[in-house]
């Protein structure tokens, strides 16, 4: 590689996770002024992005396996190692997290109360995300998984809206239940196999030793344990994504959380669940997923259709976009499930399309949903916290640039070709339609209702006569435009040239599919 080359001797992934932690400490030590804490947070988040960009630069997309791998023994007797590494999927998640955290910090400009603690928690959460997306051994992966949950809880609990107490508790309990299920399931897996390492486990499964079979052979345990393990792991991820009906924490949490935190929740933390489905559930339990594919598909369809209808019935912009998030992530779940469908080998292209589409959709959703909640934050700043669908009207007249840019984000969310929402959804449907025709055909209803409620938002907030109350609302400032421009530009780039993402991830998908061949 010409030009700048990345020295592979450095433990880059460990460094990456350490950067935000160090940043969090520095933020706590920064001056009491909000600007100082924010400035420090900017520096740390930009440094993290810098490291992820270095990783991208040194990454070889033609190779589907793990790169930047670090593996050191930790507690050998328990099979616990410090094992990190990334493939195309991991790299994308890292890039996405770094960008989402930047957007979150940008959208937190108006945090006045205890800014040092706020930004330190945000950075700690970023460290949890980086750790989750790089760890390959269950023990420290689980540590990071929980590490990201705790700052999120406090961020909602301390800086949230009026209903924050209940929302935070609900969020915490829900995800905690999922985490406990995961923990128990993995302890059982360890007892059955003697492994905590995702890669080793996946290798075992790929070599024809399904975990279900090993679990049944465990002394003194009933055969049903295999299903308990499977559902435990599934539940852990289903709550995080979330998949209907494990989603009820989401609308209230997204609505009550400060917008900067909502951005983190929807942009990055929801991807932890999907990442888990791809990295853990899919390679470890392909056989079991195949056996219960029909009920799982019903859950995916319900996530897509149900949440789009529910979004239509909301009056609060944040709740609308919250349900819309469930809907968009439902397409990812549909793509992932379609890829495990048992079928003839000739459908390899369709499976690759479904998985590629799901991963592309993860990236696109992270970008679009983050930017949408950012706009809501900007609107709330101007309206003094109001964000009801009926509180506005005619804003296009008052703030044309704001409405133009937010309109682009809304149409991206709607899946308009040319913007980033479309290629991912197209690939998911392209793959899913031949594999699981009925589920794909039903899911199309979600595409229609999404258009209905998003255009409803445009009509009631931007169109119609100006609400005299907001006739003096200021348009985006130069600085805000400058901050938003790259994000909006990225929507066009990914919409017109999705190969930018697919080129990174396609070999990983091929690798992943090779492991789950029936």
């Amino acid at each position, binding site marked *: 590689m010409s030009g700048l080359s990345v020295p592979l001797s450095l433990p880059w992934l460990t460094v990456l996770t350490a950067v935000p932690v160090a940043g969090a400490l520095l933020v706590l030590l920064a001056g009491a002024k909000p600007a100082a804490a924010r400035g420090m947070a900017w520096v740390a988040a930009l440094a993290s992005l810098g490291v992820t960009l270095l990783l991208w630069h040194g990454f070889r997309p033609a190779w589907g396996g793990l790169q930047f791998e670090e593996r050191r023994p930790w507690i050998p007797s328990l099979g616990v190692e410090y094992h990190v590494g990334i493939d195309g999927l991991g790299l994308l998640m890292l890039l996405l997290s770094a960008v989402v955290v930047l957007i979150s910090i940008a959208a937190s400009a108006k945090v006045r109360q205890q800014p040092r603690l706020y930004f330190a928690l945000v950075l700690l959460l970023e460290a949890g995300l980086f750790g989750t997306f790089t760890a390959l051994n269950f023990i420290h992966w689980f540590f990071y998984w929980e590490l990201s949950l705790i700052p999120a809880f406090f961020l909602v609990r301390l800086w949230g809206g009026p209903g924050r107490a209940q929302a935070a508790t*609900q969020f915490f*309990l829900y995800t905690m239940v999922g985490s406990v299920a995961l923990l128990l399931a993995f302890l059982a897996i360890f007892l059955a196999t003697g492994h905590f390492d995702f890669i080793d486990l996946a290798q075992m499964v790929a070599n024809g030793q399904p975990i279900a079979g090993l679990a049944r052979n465990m002394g003194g345990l009933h055969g049903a344990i295999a299903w308990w393990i499977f559902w435990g792991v599934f539940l852990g991820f289903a709550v995080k994504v979330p998949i209907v*009906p494990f*989603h*009820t*924490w989401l*609308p209230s949490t997204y609505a009550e959380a400060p917008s900067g935190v909502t951005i983190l929740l929807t942009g990055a933390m929801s991807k932890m669940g999907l990442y888990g489905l791809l990295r853990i559930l899919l390679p470890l339990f392909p056989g079991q997923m195949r056996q219960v594919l029909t009920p799982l598909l019903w859950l995916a369809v319900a996530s897509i259709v*149900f*949440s789009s*209808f*529910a979004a*239509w*019935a*909301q009056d609060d912009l944040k709740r609308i976009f919250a349900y819309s998030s469930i809907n968009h992530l439902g397409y990812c779940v549909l793509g992932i499930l379609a890829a495990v469908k048992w079928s003839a080998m000739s459908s*390899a*292209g*369709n*499976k*690759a*399309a479904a998985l*590629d*589409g799901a991963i592309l959709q993860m990236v696109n959703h992270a970008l679009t949903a983050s930017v949408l909640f950012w706009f809501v934050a900007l609107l709330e700043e101007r309206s003094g916290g109001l964000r009801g669908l009926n509180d506005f009207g*005619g804003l*296009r*007249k008052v703030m*044309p640039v704001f409405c*133009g840019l937010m309109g682009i984000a809304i149409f991206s969310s709607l899946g*308009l*070709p*040319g913007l980033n929402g*479309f*290629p991912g959804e*197209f*690939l998911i*449907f*392209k*793959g899913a*339609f*031949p594999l699981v025709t009925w589920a794909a*055909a039903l899911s*199309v209803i979600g*595409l*229609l*209702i999404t*258009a209905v409620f998003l*255009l*409803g938002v*445009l*009509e009631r907030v931007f*169109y*119609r*006569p100006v609400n005299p109350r907001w006739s003096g609302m200021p348009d985006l400032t130069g600085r805000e435009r400058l901050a938003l421009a790259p994000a909006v530009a990225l929507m066009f780039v990914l919409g017109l040239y*999705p*190969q930018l993402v*697919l*080129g990174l991830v*396609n070999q990983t*998908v*091929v690798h992943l*599919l090779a492991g789950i061949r029936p």
Partner: protein
Amino acid sequence: MIEGIPNPAWIVRNLWLIPVLPLLAAGLAAIAPQRRRRLSASLAIGAMSCSLVLAGAALAEALHEPARQVVNFPWLQFGGEWLRLGWILDPLTAVMLVMVTFVSLLIFIYSVGYMDHDANFTRFFCFLSLFGAAMLGVVVSNSLLLLFMCWEVVGLTSYLLIGFWYQKPEAAAAAAKAFITTRIGDLGFFLGMLWLYGQTGTLLFYDHGAGCLEHSALTMLAGRAAALGMAASTGIALLIFCGAVGKSGQLPLHVWLPDAMEGPTPVSALIHAATMVAAGVFLIARVYPLMAAPAAGVQALTVVAWVGAITAFFAATIAVAQNDIKRILAYSTVSQLGYMMLGLGVGGVAVGFFHLITHAFFKALLFLGAGSVIHGCTEEQDIRNMGGLRKLMPITFATYAVGTLALCGVPLFSGFWSKDEILHAAHGWSVSQVPYALGAAGALLTAFYMTRQVCYVFFGNRRQPAVVHPVLAEHAADHGMGLQDTEFCDPASGTHAAHESPAVMTAPLIILAFFAALLGFLGTPAWPWFQAFLEGRHAAVDFGQFSGNGILMLMAISTAIVCAGLAIGWWFYGRRPIENATAPDPTAPMDPLERLQPRLFHALANRLYVDEFYGMTVIRLARAAAQFCDWLDRWVWNGAVQAVRWLVLGAAHMDASFDSYVVNAGFDEGCRGVRQSGGMLSRIENGRVQSYLRILGAALVVLALFLVWGRRG
């Protein structure tokens, strides 16, 4: 990557420039400040002029080399496959390119005059350019996916331009209605595309024998059985047709098009008459090999023909009783699009497509004429408040008359040749004669409602507007044309004198009128050059064609029908001037037809209650589903979670009371004992008792908790 003939011409390799130039203009206009009005308009017109020149070059190349030429390129990769897109040059594309660029350019120029006073002038040209880019993208696509992508962007621009006067609630609602209604059809299109992709493994139309419209793919599709006794090819074709039904305003998805008239009139002319709505017809023409694939069971083209015929007649009836000058034309457009579909269904690509081209010119002309009328009458759109404009707006009147004659199908005008060919094909259709009857009846109604409109608008005397609608007044003020503006106010009568529009608006009218009158001669039975070009044949002049096949007979019948329509219209509306105060009773209805058949007239005026029907059924049902989902979430799912929460909390409270009454009581007892013994110890040791106590207390708590929890666990 380049397929077809070995050394493609420059224009074939660079055909992508035709849509991309307007796209660049749109992008630049989007970031230009609002005050750069001339820049935005110049960019739009300049880019479209360049595209027109290139389209001309493309037509020349297609004339020179009628075989199709395609260029494909890879877009994205999944697994080991590449998804490829591409562009195509064949006679269909070439003709459509020239039509779209030419009509667009004229309408862009017209808009400079029409939108002159609008505050969002810059944005308007940005959207127009984006529309041009997307529409031209639809035309040059050699991939169903690329076509679909451009198709959706066309829908977006339609949405933006219908809702251009976004402060009008009606415009905002109409924009959303248009987008959503067409999206319903587009979902069928989307599913059809997925099905086609799954079956053939490609979405390229033509790919050196491997495209989805080529022989091997079609044979495979036609031979594969799907549900309901249809072949896969029929199923796919019908799903794709759903998209065309939405975009081209066919029954039952026609409801958005009349409402789309809320947009500025140049938009109605360009998008909702000449080009975008014809995109559905273009789509069917493009995938015609698939529509016509020789499959067993139901034929896709049969469905297309029936939908087209029913729409042609149905929309024409509604047009009879409309009072808004643009809505009459909108229903007329729906009806004419029905004719095009009928033509495709019964006669093939050339038959339907020829009407598409002639219609584009005469309907754009009519809409621009209507715009000129509206502009001249200070934003008045109700034909009952017009009248006598013949003298005040002579150019507009003359050109409008040409457009009307072409639309009605008066012999020798362009609409005559193209519509007659459709009726001729329908007459020869082997399946049924009903579509022919519907088409003929529609022709009678067309002549009737156009005569009615022309009589109302241009003949008789100027009638007073009863009430000036407040929205119109505000809107006129937006245009910088206060209703009391002396320029438009006739001081003698106190009414607003209509005025002829400026040259920038009348010049496009004259050019369009020229084509509306004469374009038909490119495709007469005697010299079917147009049809031959599309089908890659050579056309010869042969007047003998008129005598064969009963053509002359059918032409005579058509002519008689048109004359009858004109005559009845004249008898109703033209015989004596329509006045609002002539009737003895001022409240009596003004329309002669309304007086004659009030109930029928009201049913038609209310668009046969289709919108109301949808509102009561589909929309209400969907809305109820939304409420139900919300209710389910708030009460059932969340209720279950809350129930669990209360259970946990209840258990916690029980624990707490257990702690306070049992554990704490014991603790307090223990403390008392400790304090006593401590006192004793302190007397003995004189040490720091508090710290000992604290340690002891803590140890006791831990012990107590351990015992309690340990026992229960």
